[in-house]
């Protein structure tokens, strides 16, 4: 049996079902509307596991599911050395969102990372603490700022309504997912011009450390049906 984890609700679930459906693999929920169970037709031996998109990286990492559909941002942020834990099988072309850094629009002197770095240095001198960036994407943001040599900042955790943290004086800048930028503008924020941390989209991942024993033949059939090739690192025995 090959277990595939799919987001359990909303547009991400619908679009995932559409994507597989248009390639001859039909996914559907079973039972009543509130029950998280599902079925797959078109390829024998595939079990559908409905999960919160945020939990799919962890389930892949633990090898409790063989395949999983989730945002590429979540996998990169939640898994240390993500590419050693999962392999990308296919980018699904929906669920697009950019992880960006935004600052108050009134900061007319800050448009780039270099500006942010200079502002952070002056901010620390003036206020006696490091400029705060609110985010829930700690690993991605930290790695990006380190790679770009930004200093004198600190990350503060924000699990929701991140755009409001600046007005509430709990952060000076934010790093968050945006698809249109409307929420940012409504909150008097602007995006740094050179700080797209990650362009995320829904992606089909394979777990490297899952037990692929009897799932391997199913996997071969499934990728053939989907018109994909086996991931380079996927070497079932």
């Amino acid at each position: 049996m090959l277990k595939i984890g799919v987001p359990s609700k909303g547009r991400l679930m619908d679009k995932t079902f559409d994507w597989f459906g248009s390639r001859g693999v039909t996914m559907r929920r079973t039972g009543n509307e509130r029950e998280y169970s599902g079925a797959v037709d078109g390829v024998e031996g595939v079990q559908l596991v409905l999960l919160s998109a945020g939990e799919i990286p962890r389930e892949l990492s633990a090898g409790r599911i063989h395949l999983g559909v989730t945002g590429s941002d979540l996998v990169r942020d939640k898994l240390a050395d993500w590419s050693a834990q999962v392999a990308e099988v296919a980018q699904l072309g929906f669920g697009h969102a950019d992880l960006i850094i935004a600052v108050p629009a009134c900061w007319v002197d800050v448009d780039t990372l270099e500006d942010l770095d200079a502002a952070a240095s002056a901010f620390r001198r003036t206020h006696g603490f490091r400029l705060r960036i609110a985010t829930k994407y700690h690993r991605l943001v930290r790695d990006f700022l380190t790679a770009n040599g930004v200093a004198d900042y600190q990350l503060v955790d924000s699990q929701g309504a991140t755009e409001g943290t600046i007005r509430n004086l709990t952060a000076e800048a934010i790093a968050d997912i945006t698809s249109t930028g409307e929420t940012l503008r409504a909150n008097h924020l602007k995006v740094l011009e050179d700080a797209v941390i990650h362009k995320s989209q829904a992606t089909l991942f394979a777990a490297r450390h899952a037990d692929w024993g009897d799932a391997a033949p199913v996997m071969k059939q499934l990728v053939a049906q989907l018109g994909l090739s086996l991931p380079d690192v996927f070497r079932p025995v």
Partner: protein
Amino acid sequence: MKAAIRAEAERLCAAFRAAGAQPVEADILLPADALLDLYGEDIRARAYITQDPLRGEMVLRPDFTVPVVQAHMAHGADPARYTYMGEVFRKQDTLMPRASEYLQVGFEVFDRSAPEEADAEVFALFADLLAPLNLSPQTGDIGILMAAVRGLETTETRRAALLRHIWRPKSFRRLLDRYAGRTRPHPARTRLLKALEAGKLPKTGAHIGLRSSQEIAARIHSLAEDADTPPIPAKQAELLEDLMALAAPAPQALERLRDLAVDMPHISVAVERFAARLRAMKARGIDVGALPFETGHGRSSMEYYDGFVFSFHAADPSVPVVSSGGRYDALTKVLGQGRSIPAVGGIIRPHLVAPLKA
């Protein structure tokens, strides 16, 4: 294995005591905010932080240097030599087999009299203790690099910005290219300066956040000022780059640095300190003729060092640095609240030493 590592740590600590060091203890659970602010981003990101109901945010000791300097500044003798041994904790954000809890044994010298002597004393002691392991030493001197930056013909603001990024080579390079006029400013910058010249800054709506309008105005002012600053002369930027790229056995490096000092007279004092250190090392039996030196050594990993730096590596590149250290005079000033004392020291990681011996 743990017992073997502890025995190794105790052996090293005893050797440091025999070299005249007082044993010193530090808490494992330390107040987070004051401590983490002093380290670079790397240690900050990797510290285990936890919440104490009465004392607020606390951190599991990520390193000994800061608590030892704090203890010394509070009630230390002058001069003083310390040794310590204990666990440090650092999160590992990789699947590579790296320990997140390991013993660290260290030796620190606080001495005003002869800094180069103290540098040599520490290095010779470490080299001697590590000699059976056939490690490769590497040395450098952040002080020479800092002196070179301080001597650049440009504004104090630009020198300060470059000094701030000494430990981040990529940002340093970007700034140097900008200040030397080799790269053009970002279009957003040009746009802002044009708007400023025309006397109309872009409309932005409501002011939000803690960073005040005055702070924004001050930065705009300094941007305008910077735009009028002539570039750092090409010759000076090239000399600085030659200096940063220098990697050679110590005697050849010294010769080259003395050549460079002809055109960069402001580095002479730091270069002669390097020469004095080599003499002191030689007097202590170090084979300085073969000692590798890189001006940029330690730039990306050791944020609080500001002078001599050293490390010892195993032949296998997958083994982390076995031992490292250096001079951190400025840190004692930050922690001493007005007072300071020249300080140099280093650490050995016994969990890496023990398997090399096996």
